[in-house]
């Protein structure tokens, strides 16, 4: 009887191993299929390339579906597999894929991720492919050059697709009710914050981003205020603790929990935007991409955007944290076809369709002149500023290895202490500056290839 039992168990174990055996053969089949498709490609049949999108939502999934079918129609030899990734998981997904060498053929990345990937030798330089691409001059030089110059070896690892221009959004109803003029400079904004606050009705003048992404957002605000366009001075010291920045941050920190909601301290972008869209905050600082969201909640005409705020030096500065880029991964088996696809996405028609739909600013000069750009005010202002020679572009030191970690690990957390008054703006920015200076030095010594 015991034997029966043992044999029953043995059967069970066998069964399990058989099922898992089946499974692994399924996996084998999968890889066989892959190799099959690859060899088919070599013999001139259809090539399939995988394309990861770092920011999945329904609008983009639909949009890319449309664009990809257009592309496939024009290029019958290439099929594109679209893989949407949730926004806050995309970087981790790329990181894991790079470390295990399972990267896609190409994907959407942010310029501020590129150096992390380049250091790990994951990306394909595109310069050779670009030289034989007839539409490369359509790309906005500002961003395409910065992508090239900021990479450690001076090669191009991405094509700029979209740029997110920061803006101050304001709620017109609240301003009318408080009988306050729409501000035109940061000093006027600071004054308006106090005037538009009406705590009894749960209305605050401003909503600060105090949680995830706080320090990066303030970095943009501070450089726009000061008008400084160089991130490091001639001695290689970070300019982040400039007296103008200290003064600006200090003023903002004093607004917290007086003229801004207390919950600001843990605000990520979502909470900050919903504070604005629920009519609880008269102003927020965010990029122009949230236009559609405000329109759907507050209603057209109930809000506006300030894109061209003058700095205290009376200059127009756009502070950029880089473009959204399209990159090709080194592991790709089909570099030609993949480049064809990513470059096609940045050409006039695709770039224009894409940015019109998501409400952002295209990086293609021809697309910037399109009809729809003229119609949407914040985008028009951004486009004008980008095409205007007097506008200065200040690009944050996103290429310095460790910049992103510093923000995520230290600066964002410490920022909450500044809001709470536990740390002064001076101390905070001095620390920030010394860390940034150290990282820059390390970057110049260890990463940059001359």
């Amino acid at each position, binding site marked *: 009887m015991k034997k029966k039992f043992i044999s029953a168990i043995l059967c069970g174990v066998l069964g399990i191993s058989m099922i898992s055996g089946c499974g692994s053969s399924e996996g084998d089949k999968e890889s066989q299929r892959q190799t099959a498709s690859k060899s088919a490609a070599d013999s001139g049949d259809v090539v399939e390339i995988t394309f990861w999108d770092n920011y999945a939502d329904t609008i983009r999934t639909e949009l890319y579906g449309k664009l990809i079918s257009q592309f496939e129609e024009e290029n019958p030899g290439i099929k594109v597999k679209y893989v949407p990734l949730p926004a806050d998981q995309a970087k981790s997904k790329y990181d894991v894929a790079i470390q295990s060498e399972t990267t896609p053929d190409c994907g959407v990345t942010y310029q501020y991720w590129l150096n992390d990937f380049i250091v790990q030798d994951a990306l394909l330089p595109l310069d050779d492919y670009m030289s034989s691409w007839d539409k490369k001059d359509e790309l906005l030089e500002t961003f395409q050059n910065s992508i090239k110059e900021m990479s450690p070896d001076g090669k191009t690892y991405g094509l700029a697709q979209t740029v997110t221009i920061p803006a101050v959004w304001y709620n017109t109803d609240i301003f009318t009710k408080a009988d306050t003029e729409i501000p035109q400079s940061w000093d006027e904004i600071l004054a308006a914050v106090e005037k538009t606050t009406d705590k009894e009705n*749960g209305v605050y003048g401003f909503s600060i981003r105090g949680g995830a992404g706080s320090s990066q957002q303030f970095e943009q605000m501070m450089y726009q205020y000061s008008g400084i366009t160089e991130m490091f001075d001639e001695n290689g010291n970070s300019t982040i603790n400039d007296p103008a920045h200290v003064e600006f941050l200090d003023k903002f920190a004093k607004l917290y929990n007086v003229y801004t909601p207390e919950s600001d301290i843990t605000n990520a972008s979502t909470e900050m935007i919903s504070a604005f869209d629920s009519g609880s905050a008269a102003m927020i600082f965010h990029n122009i991409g949230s236009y559609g969201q405000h329109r759907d909640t507050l209603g057209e005409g109930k809000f506006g955007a300030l894109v061209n705020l003058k700095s205290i030096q009376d200059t127009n500065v756009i502070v950029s944290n880089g473009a959204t880029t399209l990159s090709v991964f080194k592991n790709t088996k089909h570099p030609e076809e993949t480049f064809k696809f990513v470059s096609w996405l940045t050409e006039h028609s695709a770039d224009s369709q894409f940015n019109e739909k998501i409400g952002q600013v295209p990086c293609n000069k021809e697309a910037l002149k399109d009809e729809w750009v003229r119609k949407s005010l914040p985008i028009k202002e951004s486009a004008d500023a980008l095409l205007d020679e007097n506008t200065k572009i200040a690009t944050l030191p996103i290429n310095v290895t460790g910049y992103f970690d510093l923000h995520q690990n230290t600066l964002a957390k410490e920022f909450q202490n500044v809001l709470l008054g536990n740390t002064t703006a001076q101390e905070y920015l001095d620390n920030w500056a010394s860390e940034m200076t150290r990282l820059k030095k390390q970057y110049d010594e260890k990463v940059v290839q001359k």
Partner: protein
Amino acid sequence: MQKKQKTVLTPYLLILPAVLFIGCVMIYPLCKVFYLAFQNYNPTMPFLNGFCGIDNFVKILTTGEFYSALLVSLKWVVSEVGLQLVFGMIVALILNQSFRGRGFFRAMTFVPWAMSGVLTAVLFSLIFNENFGVLNDILRKLGIIKENVAWLANSKTVLGSVVVAELWRGIPFFAISLLAAMQGLSQDIYEAAKVDGCTRFQTFRKITLPLLKNTIVLTTLLRTIWEFNSVDLIYSLTGGGPVGKTTTLSMLIANQALTTNNYGYGSAISVISFFILAIVAVIYIKASGFGKESDE
């Protein structure tokens, strides 16, 4: 049970599949964590990578961040496990009686058990939000508060708020486990107790509780480990803020490993937290005399 002695092979065959699963999948990654703990390892800074001895541990133990996270972890685990046990016990005791509508209430009470941390965070962010959250609206209508409270941002209320959200989805764990165990208790003892004229409370203290001891020890231990490692809810609700008020040790680890690629440092914290849990588990098992009967 002299038969037991002869069938030496059977228990090994019985545990074989489990050993295979755990062995094939978990052992290598676990070893890797212990290995990386002694390395400077960040794939985005290859020029700094390499063996670093106990540097990671020294750095961890000399920064305040670790101790504050440990304290938050302690508060988090103790309050979660304690509250969940108490409420779970109450629910199980009520649902163990037979009355009309019991099935309905049982189904309802167990609903949150189906929720992931991310889902729970979605539900509670709609409730706790300072500007449009319903909790502030209710409390204002009841006249309890005059100004909106920022439940998830005020350093006094944030931990409590997150604890309530986690409690919400944690009660069913204890309720289900305890109820299932209660169902296994023989009714005869209760009949006897009734005949002897025991009050409800006496029955509970003298009969139910001792009989449930093993279940309670087991569930609290498992839950302690589980809550200690749980990050999804905190991550989605507060991101660990404000100023680290809700940053537990596991939040610290998740940040290092997932967001900033600091695998060496993250692994070192994991190793420390591994030993903390191991010590807690051993002490707990020894102190409670758990499993003694079953080893007889």
